């Protein structure tokens, strides 16, 4: 009897971007066949604008996953940030920027706690961030008596809702898209820098990394902080897009993980690229849009996400012997 060998397709290097690009291209072709209007600039821009938060979260999740960990707390962090912002701003137009700074600080703090508990106390990140998820949900609930108070000012919401109008050829460019491009560039620079390579090494083989003088705890903690920052940016955009609600971040952690996995980032760490993760998020959103155009109920989205994660984990376990 033969033992199952790792599945291998010729032509694709592991961690390569080619698969996700192909999938995205196929989806886009299907989409254009069904709804050619989708590619008209206004519709495309609005699609990219509203996909920005999940793409940001996927980028944040990339850093954590590639370092060999998992961040389940981002969805509840987004909710917490939106609820906090609404309560602090309470319709006051001048409170916008100070509150954004405060939110960034809070995002960093949550990332730090996640990272330090995982690395110093050696709690598996799955448990750490699940705990953080529950703590944030509970705390927000308690703090707001079960219903969000206050409201976001129009000024605060502008970043997530408005756009540069009357741009030649494109019509309007959502601010969210500009924020996304800036953050994506930053993420790319980070992964190309020493830090990015260290992170991949840490995720691939922490022991080796440790022995070669890498401070593993610091790299991993930084990854969690980046994820917290990404969640904060996403919260500002989501709060802007749709206003305050308790559901603001619901399920986003799974969306981000699915996107990263779909983009070829290996659960368990050590393989993948941040561009892949972000393309994964775009692909996921495209898939959902396609499902909508074909009249599939939106209720099926979680099921599709679940299937992608399951298949990806199964696929990853196939790879283990080939290491």
């Amino acid at each position, binding site marked *: 009897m033969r033992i199952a060998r790792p599945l291998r397709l010729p032509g694709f290097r592991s961690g390569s971007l080619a698969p996700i690009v192909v999938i995205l291209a196929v989806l886009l072709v299907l989409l254009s066949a069904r709804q050619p209007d989708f590619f008209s600039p*206004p519709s495309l821009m609005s699609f990219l604008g509203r996909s920005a938060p999940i793409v940001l979260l996927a980028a944040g999740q990339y850093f954590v996953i590639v370092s060999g960990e998992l961040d389940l707390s981002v969805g509840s962090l987004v909710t917490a940030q939106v609820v906090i912002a609404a309560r602090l701003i309470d319709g006051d137009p001048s409170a916008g920027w100070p509150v954004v700074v405060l939110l960034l600080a809070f995002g960093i703090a949550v990332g730090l706690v996640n990272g330090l508990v995982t690395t110093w106390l050696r709690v598996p990140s799955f448990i750490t961030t699940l705990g953080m998820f529950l703590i944030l949900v509970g705390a927000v609930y308690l703090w707001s008596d079960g219903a*969000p108070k206050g409201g976001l000012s129009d000024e605060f919401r502008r970043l997530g809702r408005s756009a540069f109008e009357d741009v030649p050829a494109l019509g309007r460019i959502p601010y969210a898209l500009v924020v996304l491009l800036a953050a994506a560039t930053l993420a790319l620079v980070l992964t190309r820098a020493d830090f990015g390579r260290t992170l991949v090494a840490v995720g691939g083989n922490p022991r080796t990394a440790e022995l070669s003088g890498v401070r593993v705890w610091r790299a991993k903690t930084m990854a969690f902080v980046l994820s917290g920052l990404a969640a904060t940016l996403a919260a500002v955009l989501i709060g802007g897009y749709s*206003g305050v609600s308790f559901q603001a971040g619901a399920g986003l952690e799974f969306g981000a993980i699915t996107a990263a996995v779909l983009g070829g980032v290996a659960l368990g760490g050590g393989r993948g690229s941040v561009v892949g993760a972000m393309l994964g998020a775009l692909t996921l959103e495209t898939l959902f849009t396609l499902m909508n*155009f074909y009249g599939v109920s*939106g209720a099926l989205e979680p099921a599709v996400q679940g299937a992608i994660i399951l298949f990806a984990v199964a*696929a*990853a376990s196939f790879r283990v012997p080939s290491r």
Partner: protein
Amino acid sequence: MTVLVVSTLLVLAGCATDEPTTGASSSPSAGTGSGTGKQSKFFVRADYDKQLALLDTAPTGPAGKPWEQALNPAMVKTAKYKKPGPHKICFSNAGLNNPWRQVGFKTMQAEVDTHRDRISEFVHVDAEGKDQKQIADINDLLGKGCDALIVSPNTTATLTPAVEAACQKGLPVIVFDRGVDTTCPVTFINPIGGYGFGHVAAEFVTQKMKRGGKVLALRILPGVDVLETRWSAAKVAFDKAGVDVVGVEFTDGDPARTKKIVNDYIQRYGTIDGVWMDAGAVAGAAVEAFEDAGKPVPPINGEDQLDFLKLWKEKKLTAIAPTYPTYQWRTPVIAALKILDGEQVPNPWKLPQPTITQDNLDEYVDPTMPPLHYAMCGCTDLPGYPKRWK
């Protein structure tokens, strides 16, 4: 590499779902007529007919105080509960876990404050939305020497035995909002109900939109009786009028999801001519989706939450707001005191369920109140207004 295989499979699976459309989200091509799908299993024809009849019934009771009025009241004797005051009144509350209940409970507390000479103690226990906790709460309250017990049950079937046990103790029990499957309480107080709500909204959208237009129905979530009744009445109305309902979608009460759904439908059909909602929570998000897409906002319904009412007035929407009035939280306190005086009370105590329309919108829009406040609280004459509700 493997991911590719997997994802390709998923993509194929995605294509294979071309023809489907089951249940909730049926497309017009499915040939089910108006696309409203199967009738909800919560739909009870007799209740529906009764509620629709109540919509046109004139209430009895003091004018301008709908929380003291009743529709078709059948009075019950309460002489055996007569007792000298002051009284200790106890309240087992299903939860305070949404803005509606928050506003309602504040209104109830204010109502209690107006009777401080007659109510020596008001005990409130919050079950936090848990059946088991509420059963224990009611049991605990029975040993606390309450003169009357008010119950707002978390769920109907599960709480019925606990309420029956309370009745057997001999103290007057008053149930309001959601009901129980027993007639043992002295009275059951609630407004007309979900069928009335859904019907009023569906009729409005049907009449106000252009003929043959496309309607999008947005629901919070399936399987909750009060929301199912709202939708099932709307379905009946839409089917009867032959309205083209292009989609029935669940929003989870999430504004971001709502905006995305509405945006998707606008892209898919070019335009949507009417929006029906089973609750007002995300009406603002739906309106924003039309604005952001540069489309006129079609006839739409919300609820009496102030964010929607303000938006309606500000943007001059074609809108209507059926209500599930929070003033019903005043009535149980009034009922308890009447019962302890031995006065007759209606049972069931059906409260009027007013609708906010263009004509009376200005009476209810108060820009100083918070966005999640419910305008139909009947609380403006109560002590501590408006500060207590902010």
